[in-house]
C-alpha cells in the first residue's frame, strides 16, 4: 500500500511543477498589467487542482487516473488561453473552479441516487424541450444556432443533451429485454436519435451531428442484437450525407474547403489555412509561449486552441495531448469493462466514446485531416458550457469506476 501512494505522487508533483513554471512564465510575459488578483487566481487554481487530486484518491475507491489526466489537459489549455487573452484566461480559471465543484457535486449526487436506468422518458423529453428552446430562443453564432442567452449568461444546450442522450441510450439498452418484446421496440431508440440528429441539423450544428451520430452508432454496434439495424443506420448516414452534400450548400462548402482550402484562402478557407500556417510554423518544439502568432487564427481560443498549442508549444505537445486523450479513453473503456452493472457500463462507454470522438473530430478538423466542424476540445478549449458538461461527464465516469453494490444493499 505504501508503495502505491508514493508513485501517485510523481505525476501529481509533475503537474504542479508544470503549472508553477507556466504561471511564472505567463507572469513574466504579462508583467505590464499584472495585479494581485490575477496571481491569486493562478495560485488558487494550482492549489485546487492539487487538493482535488489528493481528496479524490481518499474518497473514491474507483479510478485515480482520469481526473489526473484531465487536470493536465486543463492546465495546458488554460495556459494557452491566458497567453492569447489574459481576460479570457481568468474567466477560464473561474470556469475550471466551477467545473471541479460540479464534478464533486455530480460525483456525490450520481452515486447517492439510484434508479437512473428507469427514467428514459425524462431524458428523452427534457432533451427535446431543450432542443425546441434552442430553436426558439437560440442566437446564431458562426452560422449555427446553438446558443441560448439568458441575460448575460449564454449556454449551449447541446452540451447537456449529449449527456442526456448517453443516459437515454444506456437506459434503453440496460432494459433491452423489456423493449425488445414490444412491437417495433427496436426502432424506438433509432427514432428518437434521428429526431435529435434532425434537430441538430436544423441548428446547422454539423459538429454535434457528427458526435451524436458516431456515439449512437458505436453504442448500437456494441449492444444492438438486431444487427440489421446497425447496417441500416450506417446506410442511412451515407445516403443522407450524400444527399446533404447536394441539397444543403453549407454542407457542400465544408467539403470543398476541406478538399482545397487554398482556393478559398481569402474567405471560406481562411481559418483552416491560418491554422495550418500556425501548426507548420511551430515545428516539433514550437516557437515558445508568447513568441508565436496564434492570434492570427479566428476563434483560436475555442475551436482552434489545438493549433495555437502546436504553434507555441510544438507538435510534441500536440501529440502529448492526443496521447492524454487516448489514455483517458482507454481508462474509460477499462472502467466500463470492469463495471458490473449494465447501465453504468454503458454510461461509462458512452462518455469515453464522447470524449474520444469529440476530440478526434476537432483535432482532425484543424489539421485538415477531416472536414472541419466547429466544436470544442473537452477540457482544453475556452468555454463555460463545454467545461461544465465535460466535468459532469467526468463525475459520472468517476462513479462508474467504483464497485457499486446496490444489489447487496437491497437484499440486506
Amino acid at each position, binding site marked *: 500500500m505504501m508503495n502505491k501512494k508514493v508513485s501517485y505522487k510523481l505525476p501529481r508533483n509533475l503537474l504542479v511543477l508544470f503549472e508553477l513554471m507556466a504561471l511564472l512564465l505567463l507572469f513574466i510575459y504579462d508583467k505590464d498589467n499584472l495585479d494581485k488578483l490575477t496571481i491569486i487566481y493562478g495560485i488558487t487554481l494550482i492549489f485546487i487542482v492539487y487538493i482535488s487530486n489528493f481528496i479524490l484518491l481518499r474518497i473514491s475507491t474507483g479510478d485515480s487516473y482520469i481526473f489526473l489526466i484531465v487536470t493536465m489537459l486543463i492546465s495546458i489549455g488554460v495556459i494557452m488561453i491566458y497567453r492569447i487573452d489574459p481576460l479570457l484566461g481568468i474567466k477560464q480559471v473561474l470556469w475550471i473552479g466551477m467545473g471541479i465543484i460540479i464534478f464533486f457535486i455530480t460525483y456525490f449526487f450520481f452515486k447517492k441516487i439510484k434508479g437512473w436506468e428507469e427514467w428514459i422518458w425524462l431524458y428523452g423529453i427534457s432533451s427535446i424541450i431543450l432542443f425546441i428552446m434552442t430553436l426558439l430562443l437560440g442566437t446564431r453564432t458562426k452560422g449555427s444556432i446553438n446558443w441560448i442567452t439568458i441575460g448575460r449568461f449564454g449556454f449551449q444546450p447541446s452540451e447537456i443533451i449529449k449527456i442526456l442522450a448517453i443516459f437515454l441510450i444506456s437506459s434503453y439498452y440496460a432494459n433491452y429485454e423489456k423493449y425488445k418484446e414490444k412491437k417495433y421496440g427496436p426502432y424506438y431508440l433509432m427514432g428518437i436519435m434521428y429526431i435529435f440528429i434532425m434537430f441538430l441539423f436544423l441548428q446547422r450544428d454539423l459538429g454535434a451531428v457528427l458526435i451524436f451520430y458516431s456515439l449512437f452508432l458505436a453504442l448500437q454496434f456494441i449492444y444492438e442484437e438486431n444487427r440489421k439495424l446497425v447496417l441500416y443506420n450506417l446506410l442511412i448516414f451515407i445516403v443522407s450525407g450524400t444527399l446533404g452534400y447536394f441539397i444543403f450548400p453549407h454542407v457542400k462548402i465544408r467539403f470543398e474547403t476541406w478538399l482545397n482550402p487554398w482556393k478559398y484562402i481569402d474567405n471560406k478557407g481562411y481559418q483552416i489555412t491560418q491554422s495550418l500556417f500556425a501548426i*507548420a510554423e511551430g515545428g516539433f518544439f514550437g516557437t515558445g509561449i508568447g513568441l508565436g502568432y496564434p492570434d492570427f487564427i479566428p476563434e483560436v481560443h475555442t475551436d482552434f486552441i489545438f493549433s495555437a498549442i502546436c504553434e507555441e508549444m510544438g507538435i510534441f505537445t500536440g*501529440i502529448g495531448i492526443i496521447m492524454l486523450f487516448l489514455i483517458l479513453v482507454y481508462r474509460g473503456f477499462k472502467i466500463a469493462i470492469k463495471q458490473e452493472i449494465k447501465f453504468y457500463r454503458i454510461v461509462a462507454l458512452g462518455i469515453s466514446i464522447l470524449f474520444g470522438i469529440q476530440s478526434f473530430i476537432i483535432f482532425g478538423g484543424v*489539421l485538415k485531416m477531416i472536414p472541419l466542424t466547429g466544436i470544442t476540445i473537452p477540457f482544453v478549449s475556452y468555454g463555460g458550457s463545454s467545461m461544465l458538461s465535460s466535468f459532469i461527464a467526468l463525475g459520472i465516469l468517476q462513479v462508474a469506476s467504483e464497485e457499486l453494490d446496490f444489489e447487496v444493499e437491497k437484499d440486506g
Partner: protein
Amino acid sequence: MDKELKRIITVLVGICILFVSLVAYLSYFQVFKAESIKMNSYNKRLWINEEKILRGSIIDRDGKILAYSEKEGETYKRIYNYGSLYSHIIGYSYREYGKVGLELEYNNALLNISDSTPLNELKNIVIPNTEGNTLKLTIDHHIQEYARNLLKGKKGSIVAMNPKTGEMYAMVSLPDFNPSALKENWSNIVEDENSPFLNRATSGLYTPGSTFKVITAVAAIEKTDLDREYECKGSTKIDGYVLKDYNSKAHGKLSLEEALVKSCNTYFAEKGVLIGKEKLGEVTERFMINKKIPFDLPTAKSTFPYKDNIGKTDIAAASIGQGKVLVTPLNMALVASSVANKGEMVKPILVKEIISPEGKVIRQSQPQTISRGADIFTANEVKNMMVEGVKRGTSKNASIKNIRVAGKTGTAENPSGKAHAWFIGFAPADDPQIAVAVVLEEEGSTGGQAAAPIARNIMIEAINTIK
C-alpha cells in the same frame, strides 16, 4: 458477456486507430508539408519576421546597387533602382504579391535567416538579427542595360556569359515588367498574352533551328564510321517527307565543315538519320537537354524526346533543330560556352557572392563543371567550323574586326508562322571571354540578319568593358 466484451474492444481499437492516425498525420504534416506551407505568401508570419529585418541589397559585379530597402515608418520599403531592367533576374518581393526571382530563391540569405535549429534560435534571441546579407551578382549592369536596349520593342531573350567561369553578364527577357509599379499594372501584366512574367531566358522553350546543328556536328564527328561527304541538291526526301534547304538552294558537294558554314539542312537531316536517334540523343543529353540545369533561378528543361517512338522524319527534323526539339536560351548559351571551353560545360552562376552586413564574404560561387559536352578535339573542330561560319558563312553579320568570332545562326520555323531568329556564339575564339545566345521570338527574319548583329554588338561591348 463475451460478445459484448469483444465488441467493446473492437470500438476501443477503432478509436485507438483514429488517434494513432492523428499522430501519424501530424508528424507527416510536419516533416513533409510544413516547409512549403510556411512559405505561402498568405502566411502573415513570414512578413512579420521580415518586416523587422532590413532586407539586404542586391548589387552588380562592380558594386552598383540594383535593389535595396529603406525604412518607411515601422516597416521597410523595397526599392528597385532600374525598374523593369532586372525584373526577370531580381524579381520582386511584396506582401500582396509574394516573391519571385532572386528575391524568392535567396530570401533567407537576403534576410539573414538561418535554419531553425535550437542553437540558431538562441543566437537569434541573444543577438537579434536586424539586417540581411547583400547579394553580389555576376551581372554587369552596363552590359545588361546595353543588351536590353538592343532588344527593345521586340520579344525574345539574350543571355551573355563567361564560358569559362559560368558567370552571367547579362540576362534579358522581353517583354518584362516594372517591379516598382506592380500595384498599378498588376491586372494588365497578368492578362497580357505576351506573358511578361515568363522569364524567357531560363524558362522559355523555343525551337532552336539551325543553332542545334552544333550539337548534331559533335555527334557526326564522334560517329567515326560516318561518311562526312555529301552532295546537296537543295532538297531531299526522307520517308516520303520532302525537306528543303533555305530557298531550295543546292549547295553541291559538301564536307561537314562546309555544311555547318552554309547551314545546309539536307546534309544534317540525312546525316542525322545515319547517326541514329540513340547517338544523337546521347550527345544532346551531354549538352544538358532533357536535364535540369542547376541555376540560381528556376529553369525549364529543354527537351528532345528521342526515347519516345519517333520515326526517321522526326530524327531528320531534330538534327536541324526543328520538330520535337525545344530549348531554352540559357541552355543554348551553355552549348556555345561548352564549345568555347574545350567541351566542358560550366554551371551558370548569377550570384557571385553573399556579403554579410559587416562586409564579410559569407559565400562565394566557384566555377563548377556540370557536364562534358564533347572532348577537347571535337570541341576544337566544331569551334573552327563556327569561326569559318562567321568568316564566310551565314553568321557573317557577327564578325568583329581584329577578333576571331565563332558563331552559328538559326532560323526556327514554328507554329506561329513567323520564324524565331537565333544566334549563338562566342569571342574571341582563341581565348573565349564571352558566350552569347540571342533569340528573337517570331521575328520573321533569319538569324543571320536579325540576331547576329545584336550578338556582335554585345560581344564587342563585353570585350571592351568587362575587366
